[in-house]
């Protein structure tokens, strides 16, 4: 459900006039993550899971990753810090006792690096790279549907919207987060969030920083960009 209010007055101005007697309604509306109002981007509640990067939290609706659904992370090439961005999330998933499934990653996930990041590798399962695309998608759907998997990571460059929608629904049934890593952005993807990571070193930034753009996020109406220090946790 999406509700947009036509008038653009900031809510602080109108609150003391018309809304004073309906404070409870206001509160109820406020707490519902399915409902967003274009006018009050900043005050959307805290229903998200913190990303671990305060600056990124600031520009995501609900101040964090959604509870379930699909996220797309777009990088022009691998090694831009796309996994580093998910490390705090992975850590919290493992702490909940849930599994992380890596589906057909392009390279070997390197266990010592994960241990360094504080992630128990016992709860990581990898589906090998040479699995057929059909099987990979099948496992992704099944993994998203079970409640035992907290996070499903997949590397697929191009997928039709129909498939993505199906995965999105699977993620909602299983209350699981699915993350796609891809090289190219597709405009009409049904994913909840599309993030782009860009290189920021050229602008004189340090090695560990990356520029993250939220191209699309359900509950957000314009692209926002921030600088994130990827290695602040290690």
């Amino acid at each position: 459900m999406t509700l947009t209010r036509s008038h653009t007055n900031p809510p602080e101005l109108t609150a003391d006039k018309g809304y004073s007697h309906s404070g409870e309604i206001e509160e109820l509306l406020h707490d519902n993550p399915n409902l967003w109002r274009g006018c009050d981007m900043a005050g959307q509640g805290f229903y998200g899971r913190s990303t671990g990067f305060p600056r990124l939290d600031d520009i995501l609706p609900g101040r964090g990753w959604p509870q379930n659904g699909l996220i797309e992370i777009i990088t022009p090439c691998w090694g831009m810090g796309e996994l580093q961005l998910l490390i705090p999330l992975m850590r919290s998933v493992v702490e909940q006792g849930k599994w992380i499934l890596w589906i057909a990653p392009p390279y070997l996930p390197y266990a010592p690096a994960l241990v360094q990041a504080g992630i128990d590798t016992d709860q990581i399962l990898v589906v090998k790279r040479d699995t057929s695309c059909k099987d990979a998608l099948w496992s992704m759907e099944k993994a998203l549907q079970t409640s035992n998997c907290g996070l499903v990571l997949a590397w697929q460059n191009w997928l039709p919207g129909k498939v993505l929608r199906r995965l999105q629904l699977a993620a909602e049934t299983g209350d699981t987060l699915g993350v796609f890593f891809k090289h190219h952005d597709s405009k009409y993807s049904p994913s909840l969030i599309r993030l782009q990571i860009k290189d920021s070193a050229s602008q004189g930034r340090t090695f560990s920083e990356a520029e993250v753009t939220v191209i699309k996020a359900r509950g957000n109406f314009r692209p926002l960009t921030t600088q994130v220090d990827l290695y602040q946790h290690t």
Partner: protein
Amino acid sequence: MQQTKLMNELAGVVQSVSSTVSFHPLALICEIRSSLKYFGGIEAVHNKLKPLLIAELQALQLPDYFLYAASPTVTGSLLLARSGHNALVYRKDNLRSALGKLPTEVLWLGKEPNRRLYNMGVRYLRDIWRLPPEGLRKRFGSDFVKQLNKALGAAPEPTHNYIPPPAFTTCCELPYELENLDRLLPVADEMLAQLCEFLRRRDLSTSHLLFSLLHEKRDSTEIDMALRQASRSREHLMLLLETHFGKLTLPAPVIAVRLEVKRFDAFMSHSDSLLAEDKPTARRSQRNNLDQFMEQLQARLGDHYLKCISSVAEHCPEYASQQLDYGESIKAGRHAEPNSLVRKNTEGGRGAAIRVTSIPRPLWLLQDPQQLVLKNGKLYHRKPVAIVSGPERIETFWWSGTDVRRDYYVAREANGSRLWVYRERSGDRNWYLHGYFA
């Protein structure tokens, strides 16, 4: 152990004439009174059983000679058979006189009591009949008197009965040939329902099934379903079967389906709790779900496509991480109780127990290092590469002949990739890309 096995084999044969077979020291006893009418008398039973037993004994490579007797009581028959007379007693009233003829050795009393009986002038059982039971109890113990009473039918005789091992095979002939696996599912479902009912009645579960699809003039297509955790849930088995069917291509139309259980297991039940939050039972059922999910994944992808990773205490970077098949790692005893605090405390968690270096390692490792191009003193991957930090020197395996002598650097490609590169310290001193700081 060997003897128990042989006795079981023989009991299986004896079952052809009697439903109640029990084991005794060096003897098998079966109840035949209730089947006399069916077989048409004791002679018929004897004629039927003897060749069967001889054949079985020969098959087991044992001497095909045995003693037998029939009487109204278990112990009576046993004593009669031991005497070697192949006697037959129909009525309980005649037991006393029939047993009376037997020497006391058939009681298998042991040396000392035998000697005492001999000294008392007792040679045959009929001599014992004449003695007062109270005195016998005092001298030889109550077991002795009880045995005699049992033999005469004056005391109850509880027995350990032979229970045949469970076996389940069912076959369903299809009314017409089927080529579409989806149409087979209802048939398979029906068969699994039968199986689950069978298992439920016997309080068993199964961990290995064989599903055969029979074709005409062709070997059957077999689906070998081995379960990680024994189950008797129809839904779970059906789900697994559907997953197997999903991968299967039929070489020919199916004319019949056969289901066979290869392995039975005891059923381990657990109660589902109503208010399940963070309770051991809840966790266990979650664990069950997980096992079912993993099983499904394994069934679809194949054994070698599902990997677990773990770090190894090893200096050389490519050996510091190992991949194991999920099934293997289960056998190796990992994942026994994930998230259990006890384990974490005692072992410190398997992953964390191995100390890893504090120098940053990349999240991606290339299986085979990729050589970088060095042109005019500049390093290129796809784009120019600039060194950010390093070197970290890794030298190992000097003892094995395949020396590893490398200087590792963290580098950055012009397009923004963070790379982990190394330069060999021997040979051509080439540069290689070994990982990505993703």
